[in-house]
């Protein structure tokens, strides 16, 4: 068995034979031509054929993946008919008296280099589009055809990378999944895979090689793993995982689009918790009404130095845009305690859970906090972002946070950078102190979200990482439930809303109780959204 890890772009499990996407080997040689007029018209014919193919692809994509995603093929047509592009090819053919293939390849290199040299990640990505359209013309000129031999049975498609045109051309009913060696999760192919609901893993590297063509393979789109020639144990484990996923999908079909409403008509929002951008697919798939907790820590944990404003902005923007107007609650950095990062240079502590962490770091090192806030306020332009602060114990902390926000906004305004002025602000209720002063806190913020894991640990004075204490640990302890009730009453008295984003929110034994308390929202792991919806709909 060979196990390769990559990046998942779409969850789900697929099991099947690997089939390699074969690209024709084209060697573009520079050859002399005598009749340049003939060569130029040979190119024009090939170009017209390519444009017609692209028209067909546009129609197919329009049907499969919608207008916004199909637009790329219209842009490809324009690129092929762009006068700069055509003039460059004609010039090379006529002045150097060379073959059309060489002229196209040279022009493609020049134009894609122009994009690659631009100071904008989006435009740099367009270099791939130039290559893709030029390859199409070259294939026609060389008379080769690309692709997959007729697939008799459904297969997992493997490739170094797939261009959008290649992905769309595949017979969808025969594609079980995608496994590619390279590619980014923002590539068109990744987006198309998500739109087409096909498990896909990218960035597997060159361990994935053509020698595995025809081997049995498993894509675990949840973990981003590809197993080739899986052993019995893995195979049966994956089969189970696949069945569970299919069950979940069946549940989805039943409950998708249904309201989170009790029999007597009480409604509650069900959102999802995520810890990385890669969880977005699961959020959308499970029909969550929003993101109730986006843990921004991964940006810090996965980096070897402080993530820049641009890095953070790109991530927050992507999440906001993917949720298309649904609420996205992003929690500011919660480093410290059990989550340590070397470059923060934090001292060892006797009592890390009660120590220098979360908002306490942000308020003592405002430069770190400001970078994150700038990225958040900028990204808020692109969707419905709310910001939530962890580990709050006093009203004064909120005042300090608001003063820093005012500075950040003033800075953005002065620099002429677009940002959203009004962003919903909330605090985590995870310390007994925040519960006791919840009425005062509720006057300052728009919402509360109860972090039941920490609230339980602080209230019961039980270290949740010490397994010896398990027998004393009661997640349904009446002290916790009274605290949640108290926070809810405070919130509502001051016109704020309240939700739960800790593990207790997904505890189906407590759903009825939470509804009675009048909670406005429960945020749970994506896989729990539908079971929770089911439970809510069963409550009176």
């Amino acid at each position, binding site marked *: 068995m060979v196990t390769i890890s990559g990046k998942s772009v779409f969850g789900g499990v697929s099991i099947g034979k690997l089939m390699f996407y074969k690209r024709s080997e084209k060697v573009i040689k520079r050859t002399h031509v005598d009749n340049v007029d003939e060569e130029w018209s040979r190119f024009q014919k090939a170009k017209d054929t390519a444009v017609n193919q692209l028209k067909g692809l546009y129609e197919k994509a329009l049907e499969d993946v919608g207008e*916004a995603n199909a637009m790329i093929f219209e*842009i490809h047509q*324009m*690129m092929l008919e762009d006068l700069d592009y055509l003039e460059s090819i004609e010039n090379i053919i006529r002045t150097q008296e060379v073959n059309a293939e060489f002229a196209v390849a040279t022009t493609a290199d020049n134009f894609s280099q122009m994009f690659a040299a631009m100071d904008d990640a989006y435009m740099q990505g367009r270099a791939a589009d130039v290559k893709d359209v030029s390859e199409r013309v070259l294939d026609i000129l060389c008379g080769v055809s690309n692709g997959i031999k007729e697939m008799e049975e459904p297969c997992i498609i493997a490739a170094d990378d797939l261009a959008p045109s290649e992905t769309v051309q595949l017979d969808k009913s025969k594609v079980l999944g995608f496994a590619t060696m390279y590619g980014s999760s923002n590539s068109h192919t990744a987006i198309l895979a998500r739109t087409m609901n096909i498990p896909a893993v990218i960035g597997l590297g060159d361990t994935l090689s053509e020698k595995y063509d025809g081997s049995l393979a498993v894509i675990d789109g949840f973990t981003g793993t590809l197993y080739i020639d899986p052993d019995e144990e893995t195979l049966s484990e994956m089969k189970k995982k696949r069945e569970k996923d299919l069950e979940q999908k069946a549940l989805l079909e039943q409950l998708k689009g249904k309201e989170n409403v009790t029999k007597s008509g009480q409604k509650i929002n069900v959102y999802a918790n995520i810890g990385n951008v890669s969880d977005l697919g699961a959020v959308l798939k499970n029909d969550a009404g929003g993101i109730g907790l986006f843990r921004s820590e991964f940006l810090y944990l996965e980096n070897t130095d402080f993530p820049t404003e641009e890095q953070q902005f790109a991530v927050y923007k992507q999440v906001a845009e993917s949720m298309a107007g649904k609420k996205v609650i992003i929690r500011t950095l919660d480093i410290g305690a059990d989550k340590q990062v070397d470059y923060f240079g934090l001292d060892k502590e006797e009592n890390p859970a009660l120590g220098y962490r979360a908002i306490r770091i942000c308020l003592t090192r405002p430069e770190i906090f400001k970078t994150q806030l700038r990225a958040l306020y900028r990204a808020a332009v692109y969707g419905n972002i709310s910001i939530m602060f962890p580990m709050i114990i006093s009203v004064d902390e909120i005042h300090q946070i608001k003063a820093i926000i005012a500075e950040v906004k003033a800075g953005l305004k002065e620099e002429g950078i677009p940002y959203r002025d009004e962003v919903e602000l909330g605090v985590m209720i995870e310390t007994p102190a925040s519960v006791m002063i919840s009425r005062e806190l509720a006057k300052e913020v728009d919402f509360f979200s109860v972090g039941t894991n920490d609230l339980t640990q602080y209230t019961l004075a039980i270290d949740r990482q010490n397994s010896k204490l398990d027998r004393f640990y009661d997640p349904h302890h009446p002290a916790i439930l009274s605290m949640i009730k108290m926070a809810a009453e405070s919130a509502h008295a001051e016109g704020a809303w309240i939700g739960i984003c800790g593990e207790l929110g997904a505890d189906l034994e407590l759903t009825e109780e939470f509804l009675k308390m009048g909670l406005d929202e429960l945020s749970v792991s994506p896989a729990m959204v539908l079971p929770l919806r089911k439970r809510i709909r069963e409550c009176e």
Partner: protein
Amino acid sequence: MKEFKYVITDPEGIHARPAGILVKQAAGYQSDIKIAKGEKSADAKRIFGVMGLGVKTGEEITVTADGADEDKAISELETFFKENL
């Protein structure tokens, strides 16, 4: 020759999609249509040229039209920019 100035408000600037729509629209006029950003200028009928300008949000561009239907082109393009970019 007619012209107008416009500051891009689309957060992504002139990215592929609006560039495509712009080129399509510009191709419909007889006049020469140019977009200039600072000292760089591009033919609005050529997608590589337009995308190559790399116009970002907040940047000012000048659109000029020169030819028989320049009045129509300028007024329609100004509307296009206001609505799409």
